[in-house]
């Protein structure tokens, strides 16, 4: 494992960015980032670098903790659903500052049809369930399920083209 301080400095922007994107609250996002770094530290023995990078591992913990807060603590009222989840808060949104991987992922997301992109953004970066998305976008639940499914399969096949192996 990399030295702890280096790990924090390298990952703080994405970890806090992800927590804030989901929770929309400074204090709650800070708490989640702290919990995630502590959890990462405690379970560092289970960390298996063959299953993806350290960054992905840490961000998965951040996201799971944030989702737990959203769902179980009902931290955010359901009617606060925000549709815009793009790069408007990115302190380094200039593509020149994004590494090739991050730039590629954004482009992959941009390449999806708008309805699929919106559904995936709301689910993934908004932390909303598919029935919440259906209610707020005033679409039938089945339509939202289809958007998530087609959108994610498309992303998975793009992912495969870039990183190898594919969903069956």
């Amino acid at each position, binding site marked *: *494992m990399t*030295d*702890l301080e280096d790990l*924090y*400095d390298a990952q*703080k*922007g*994405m970890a*806090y*960015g*992800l927590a804030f*994107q989901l929770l929309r609250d*400074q204090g709650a996002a*800070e708490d989640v*980032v702290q919990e995630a*770094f*502590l959890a990462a*530290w405690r379970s*560092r*023995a289970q*960390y*298996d*670098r063959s299953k*993806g990078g350290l960054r*992905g591992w840490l*961000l*998965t913990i951040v*996201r*799971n903790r944030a989702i737990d807060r959203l769902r179980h603590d009902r931290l955010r009222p359901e009617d606060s659903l925000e549709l815009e989840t793009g*790069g408007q*808060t*990115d*302190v380094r*949104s200039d593509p020149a500052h994004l590494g090739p991987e*991050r730039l590629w*992922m*954004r482009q992959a*997301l941009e390449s999806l049809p708008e309805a699929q992109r919106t559904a*995936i953004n709301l*689910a*993934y*970066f908004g*932390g*909303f*369930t*598919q*029935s919440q998305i259906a209610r707020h976008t005033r679409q039938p639940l089945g339509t939202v*399920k289809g958007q*998530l*499914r087609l959108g*994610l*399969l498309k*992303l*998975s096949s793009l*992912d*495969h083209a870039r*990183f190898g*192996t594919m*969903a*069956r």
Partner: protein
Amino acid sequence: MNQVDCNQVDELLAGYALTALDQPDEASVDRHLAGCDRHQRTLEELTRATDHLMLAVPEREPRPELRTRILDAIRAEAATASVSLGWSKERLALGSHACVFHSDEAGLKGTMAFLRAGLELPEEFGIVFADQTRFASLGAWLQEGYAGSVPNLIERGKLAMIPEAATSEDLIAGIGARLDRAMADGYKVIRLLGFIGWDQPGWPDTASIVEFEQRVNQVVRAYPVAVVCTYDVTKLAGLSLMEGGLRSHPITIMGNRIVRENPFYLAA
């Protein structure tokens, strides 16, 4: 929905991978996955895609106070974790790097108690770091007073012996790789007992070994490990004792006496 069939899971799996299912659906998919290899594989691929989705998240700079808060919390937790020294009642915190000075074989043999103390603890892993010509005799010393079988411990990956290397880079790489493997195997605590081959064939020169000892100070900060290096004052050159021992180890030990803030230690 209590029972779902494979067709229904086809519909739900993307939502599951995005953690967007409502509770009853999520529980149904959980149950289905437990017995369906095909969907487990599909989920693995979808999860790869969602993991990469994280790359698209907008970065945001947290307040500087958060850095202090998090690092302090982790350090406080790390400081409470320690291992017994074995031959005395003293304990070493994980992240320690100590040198033990000894002047006879009995003293050197006594250091084996440090490793022996961890052999019965399921979460602990032990490492002997020495010239490979000494593996057999060190193994025999470790065996004395241990009811189980040392070769058996090595065979089942609970204890490892790491040999010399010609450069300090290779020495560090060898130790780092073994620590990584022990972590991947699920061990929570690692004890490393070092018998460094100063001025022996196959080892780096004295200056490089001093550099190596300083590198160990970085390694111990990155793993839940306590490192004890043995220093034979009757055989080592004064310069090796001073630079390699006193100046490179934050903690020094003689017999039962332990100096936790070695005043001669120079941080790299």
